[in-house]
Each structure stands twice: as structure tokens, then as C-alpha cells.
């Protein structure tokens, strides 16, 4: 009667033991297989070392690079591909074109194109990535179809980046944008980065979207993509977008507009400094300092009384960037502003600027006169000595 449960337990243990042994055997086989492939890849790379030297030494020759002589085994082809893809990703300029042409000549583009139809998702993704690196323009359509199937999956960005690298026309980039924004409407920065990996300049596409599009995600991506770029033909569209009912679009449009401050009438920037959206007021105050627009000093001083901390912060920072005159205005705000918050923001900026100037002067003697001048203004207006300043710095720090 007591033997039966023991038999059952033994059977279970046996089954578990067999399963574990089977698992270990499978793991061991997988590992052995992986090691064998890695070893064969290594040997193939060594075998073709002379060929890689030929490529490196003659990549700037006027003639095309030639595939290695003789027949290649599949593992040799993979080894050569791994080297070429690594080079293509690291090396830009005209050499990249020669390396991608060689990949095509070696049949690697066709090979990867076939792998795009694999039933295994991992293989398809790897193929898409490789096609992107090889700038396989002829595969853009297939990559866009693949992207459409990926939908909301995060791997869509792997395929999207590959499609962007392969895109040969702005229409293809547009299709890519439509697909990515449809399934990932909030990923503005990531989509803009993905599109920027194309060898085409996406600025004309973004400009066209600003003029003709009303879709929030597309507009946000276009504005993100234009951030930091000089694109004066968008000024009209940006003016229109400042009136948008969507707050994020208004803010992004204002930021791009402020990149072109040299093309804007004075009143336009003043309007932005007084804009009802505090984010736009802060951006405008920040731009005044970054672009050294001293004519807006009075507006900045007024902004020191703004109810929003960010607006006060950027106004103070910008005043400190406008030379001794700006610093003087900042010191006056630190001692004469009506509300305590404004005085505190100004005072922090004053001390920060003095510290920065002192550090510059201690590094390079040519900055000593500037530091002395700022220190003089500080003592004249705020009436504090250096040791008092240090004490108050500590106090603020606490």
C-alpha cells in the first residue's frame, strides 16, 4: 500500500530528470553549433584577410571594387558580409557607395531580399536591417509593406529605419512617415530620428507637410525634424501653425520660428515674448539670450516678473548672456524687483554668472577684465563684497 505513492514519485522524478537532461543536451547542442559557426566565421575572415586589405587599400580607386576571386561558401559570404556591413555603418562619404555597390555585386542584396519572405520573424527583421545598411533602394517597397504588417510593434522602428536608409525618393519617405505616425502617433522624436537616417534630405518633405497637412502627429514630427535646421521657406506655415488649436503644435512651431529670429520683424519676437502660452514665452526668452538679441532687453526685464518660473529662469539666464548691460539689468532685478520670487531668480542667475566668469578668469587671463567688470557692477548695485557673495551662495545652496 505504501509502495504505490513512492513509485509515482519515482516516475515523476524520472520524467523530470529526463526532461532536464534533454534540456541540457539541447542547450549543449545549440551552444556547440553556435561555437562551430563562430569558429568557421573566424576562419573565413582570416582566409580572406588579403581580400579585405585589397578593399581597404583600393577603395579610392576610380574603378569599382571587385568581388573576391573564386567560389565562396555560404559561411565565407556571411563572413565577408559581416565585415562589409560593419564598414558601411562606420564609413561615410563616397566610400560607402562603393561598398554598397560591392554588396550588390556579391549578390547580398538579393540574398537578403529573399530572407524578407522567411516564415521566421527574427530572420525577416535581420534581413530588413541588413538591407537598410546596404542602402538597397530597390527593396524600399518591400520594406514598407513589411512595416505596414509590423503595426504597433516596437520592431516597426527597426524596419522603418531600414526603409528610411533605402528610400530613394521623398514620396517613399512620405509613405514611411504616414505608416509610422499611423501606428505610433506619440513617438515624434523617434520617427523624426528614423526619417533623418535617410541619405535624402527630409527638410523639403517636412516643409510641404507644414504647408498642407492638418494631422497633429505628422505636423509634430515635421516640426521636430526641422528643429535645429535652417528652413526659411517654412516661415509662412509656421505663422499659421502659431494659431493652431493644438498647444503642442503652437509650441513646436514657435520654437522652429525662433530659429529664424534674424528673418523676423522685431514686433514678431516681442509678440512671442508676450504670448499667452508660457512655454512660448519661455522659448522666446531663451532664444533672445542664445542669439544675443540685445534689443529685447527691456522685454526680458519685464519677463522677470512672469508668474511662470521657467519664463523667469530663461529671462534671467538670457540677461546674463547679454554682456555687462544685461548683467546690470539682472542685478537691478535682483535688488529692485517687486516680488520675492523674481528677486530670488535674478539673484541666483547673478551668482551663477559671477561664478562662471570667475572660473573662466582663473583658466585664461584674457577673461579677467570681464570678471572684474561684472564684479564691479555686482558690488555697485547689490553692495556685497566677495566674501558676502560666497556666504550667500552657500545660503542659496542650502
Amino acid at each position, binding site marked *: 500500500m505504501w509502495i504505490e505513492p513512492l513509485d509515482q514519485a519515482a516516475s515523476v522524478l524520472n520524467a523530470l530528470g529526463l526532461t532536464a537532461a534533454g534540456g541540457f543536451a539541447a542547450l549543449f547542442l545549440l551552444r556547440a553549433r553556435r561555437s562551430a559557426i563562430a569558429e568557421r566565421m573566424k576562419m573565413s575572415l582570416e582566409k580572406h584577410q*588579403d581580400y579585405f*586589405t*585589397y578593399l581597404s587599400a583600393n577603395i*579610392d*580607386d576610380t*574603378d569599382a571594387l571587385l568581388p573576391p576571386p573564386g567560389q565562396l561558401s555560404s559561411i565565407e559570404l556571411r563572413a565577408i558580409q559581416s565585415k562589409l556591413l560593419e564598414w558601411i555603418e*562606420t564609413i561615410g562619404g563616397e566610400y560607402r557607395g562603393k561598398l554598397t555597390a560591392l554588396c550588390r555585386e556579391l549578390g547580398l542584396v538579393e540574398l537578403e531580399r529573399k530572407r524578407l519572405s522567411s516564415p521566421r520573424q527574427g530572420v525577416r527583421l535581420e534581413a530588413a536591417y541588413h538591407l537598410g545598411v546596404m542602402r538597397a533602394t530597390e527593396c524600399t517597397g518591400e520594406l514598407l509593406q513589411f512595416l505596414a504588417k509590423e503595426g504597433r510593434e516596437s520592431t516597426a522602428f527597426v524596419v522603418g529605419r531600414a526603409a528610411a536608409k533605402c528610400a530613394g525618393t521623398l514620396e517613399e519617405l512620405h509613405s514611411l512617415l504616414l505608416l509610422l505616425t499611423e501606428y505610433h502617433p506619440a513617438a515624434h522624436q523617434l520617427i523624426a530620428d528614423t526619417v533623418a537616417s535617410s541619405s535624402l534630405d527630409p527638410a523639403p518633405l517636412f516643409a510641404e507637410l507644414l504647408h498642407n497637412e492638418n494631422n497633429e502627429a505628422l505636423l509634430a514630427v515635421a516640426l521636430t525634424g526641422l528643429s535645429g535646421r535652417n528652413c526659411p521657406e517654412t516661415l509662412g506655415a509656421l505663422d499659421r501653425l502659431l494659431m493652431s488649436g493644438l498647444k503642442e503644435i503652437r509650441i513646436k512651431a514657435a520654437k522652429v520660428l525662433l530659429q529664424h529670429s534674424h528673418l523676423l520683424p522685431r514686433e514678431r519676437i516681442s509678440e512671442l515674448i508676450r504670448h499667452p502660452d508660457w512655454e512660448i514665452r519661455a522659448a522666446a526668452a531663451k532664444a533672445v539670450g542664445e542669439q544675443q538679441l540685445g534689443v529685447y532687453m527691456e522685454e526680458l526685464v519685464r519677463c522677470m516678473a512672469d508668474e511662470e518660473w521657467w519664463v523667469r529662469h530663461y529671462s534671467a539666464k538670457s540677461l546674463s548672456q547679454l554682456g555687462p548691460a544685461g548683467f546690470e539689468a539682472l542685478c537691478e532685478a535682483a535688488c529692485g524687483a517687486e516680488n520675492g520670487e523674481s528677486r530670488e531668480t535674478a539673484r541666483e542667475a547673478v551668482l551663477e554668472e559671477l561664478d562662471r566668469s570667475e572660473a573662466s578668469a582663473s583658466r585664461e587671463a584674457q577673461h579677467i577684465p570681464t570678471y572684474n567688470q561684472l564684479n564691479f557692477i555686482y558690488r555697485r548695485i547689490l553692495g556685497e563684497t566677495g566674501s558676502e557673495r560666497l556666504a550667500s551662495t552657500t545660503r542659496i545652496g542650502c
Partner: protein
Amino acid sequence: MNNTLLAESGLAQRLYEHVNNMLQTVVPGTECGVIAAAVHGFSPAHLQELENRLGMEGGNLATMAAYEAKEGALIILLPGQSLAFTHFIALSAKDFLKEAELLAGGMAVAAFSESAPAAEEDIAGFVSSLNAGERTEIAVYSGYRPAPEAPTVVMIDPNADLLDFLNVRLGLQGYDVRPAHDGKEGLRLVESVQPDLVITELALPALDGYQVIQRVRNSRSRTCKVVVLTDLTVEQDICKCFELGAADVIRKPFSPKELEARLKRLLA
């Protein structure tokens, strides 16, 4: 085979005459490619077989192969061919020699043109590159003669493929290149060879690029220039490099032509 033997046996002299005779017969403006290999046990049948094999690589490829038995040297002239194509043909020649177990030492390739005819010292330099060290790869004679004062460059990057590429490119331009895969190895090299220039990535295992710059600046090699070649593209990273004393910063993907021009300027 060694350089002294080559000089005594007059191989360089005969090659010099062959090349310059050949240059007078080729189409003006074209080059004459030369492949040399240290071989043993080479027979006329091998020579015929090799010529047939090389002929298969190019439709109308004209080759003139000769075996210098005394020196154990195989010389192949390729009239009208550039250095790039000669180098490519040398790959097939090497495969043939290895398969037939005829290769006894190094191989070298060069190309000379009518406008820049081969000087005797060029040919001697080319022949000597056949036996430089324990080289197993095909040596490329680019015209830059190895000089004792050749600028030394320590190149630190975890990407072995990139190191291979730049090692060949910069080596052909006369630099003495010492590659390292991480910061520690790089600094050891800097201490031992005291290079003229260091090229470093910022993202390195063991010791990052910033530490490399700082330690180079504080080392015995503090006069050596540091060029950062990096994947990092954030403005703060770039500014920090200059603050630490980097002479230049180049972002990846980079143009090798631009890098080479910048190095030339820095080492001028």
C-alpha cells in the same frame, strides 16, 4: 631569400629594366602592375598553369610571368593595369601558389606609370617589401618609403573591423600604426612607443576615451596630439573633448579622406 641576396643577385636591377621597358610599350597614361612572390620548386608547367589561371580573371588580361630560379622569386608583369587591379589579380595568384604549395615567403604588389617611372630605389623598396618581417599578407608598395622618422599613430577602438581598415589606409600613407582595442591597451602602447598622435573612440571598455585623453596629456607623451573619432554625437561630449585637450573631434560615420587630411594637417 633576403635583401642582401636580392641586391647581390641583381633581381632588383633586372626588374627595374623589365618595368621600364614595359612602360615604353604600354598605352601612354596607363600603368604597369607588378606582382612579386617568394616561391620554391616552381616549374615551367606551373608558370603556364598560373598564366592560364590569371587569364581567366580578366577577358584580355596580358600577363608576363617569369621565375627567377636563383633568387626563388616569381615576377608577374601586368602591362596597362592599375595598382587596384594588380592587387586583385595578386589574390588569385596567391590562391594558386598556396594550393600548389609553392609559396615560400611573402608577396608584394606595385604599379608604376610612364609619368612617374620606376626609379631604382623604388624597385629596391618594392623588392624589399617582399620580405618585410614575418608578413603573411600581400604587401602593397605605395611609393611611401618606410622612414625611421615615420609618424607613429596609436589607434584605440573596440571595433576590430575599423582598426583593420584604418591600419591599411594609414599604413599605406607612411604612418607607423599601432592598433589597440581598449583604453588600457592603448595607454600601454602610448607609454611604450610615445606616438606622435593618438586616435581614440570615447566609448571604450576598461578605460573610456576621456580618461585616455587626460592620461595622455599627463603622460611623458603629453606633446602628442589626440584625435577623437567617435560614435557619440551629443554636443556636450564633443565640447568636453576639446576642454580636455583633444586636437580634433570627428564623428562617425566619417569620411576616411577627411580623416587622412586632418591627420596630415596635425602632423605637418
